[in-house]
């Protein structure tokens, strides 16, 4: 097959995003979280 000339990159060793790879890792201090935690009864 001539298609191999335009071979795309293999999916092997394509690591998941860092956040998915290390679920226990906390974001560095000072980094803003995307959402503000909602506390019931507080404004």
């Amino acid at each position, binding site marked *: 097959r001539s298609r191999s000339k335009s071979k795309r990159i*293999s999916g*092997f*060793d*394509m*690591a*998941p995003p860092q956040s*998915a790879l290390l679920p226990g890792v906390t974001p560095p201090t000072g980094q803003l979280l995307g959402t503000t935690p909602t506390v019931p009864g507080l404004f």
Partner: protein
Amino acid sequence: CSRLHTKPSISPTLLLSNMYQRPDMITPGVDAQGQPIDPQKMQEHFEDFYEDLFEELSKYGEIESLNICDNLADHMVGNVYVQFREEEQAANALKNLTGRFYAGRPIIVDFSPVTDFREATCR
């Protein structure tokens, strides 16, 4: 099935669990964005995956057969069965694939008792 299949400690066949993901895995014929998928694109996607696998697995030994479950049901979904000529080649592939990733997902690899795919049913 609900059976607990025992894994052999050595076998010429490896099972790569849930490795192939169809682009229309959520709804048949439709991609994750709700757009219809061209059947030819589906075929190409599958062939690319097959090619990736074949290339990688050939590094570890002679491949007797390479079966990819291109199904949508929960059972065996996306399972890949690869049979090498020799048990040692399968063992080598297992050692080299364990702990690696494919397309952002971990590769789950084990020996499989299947040696004849025509006879491969639950017992």
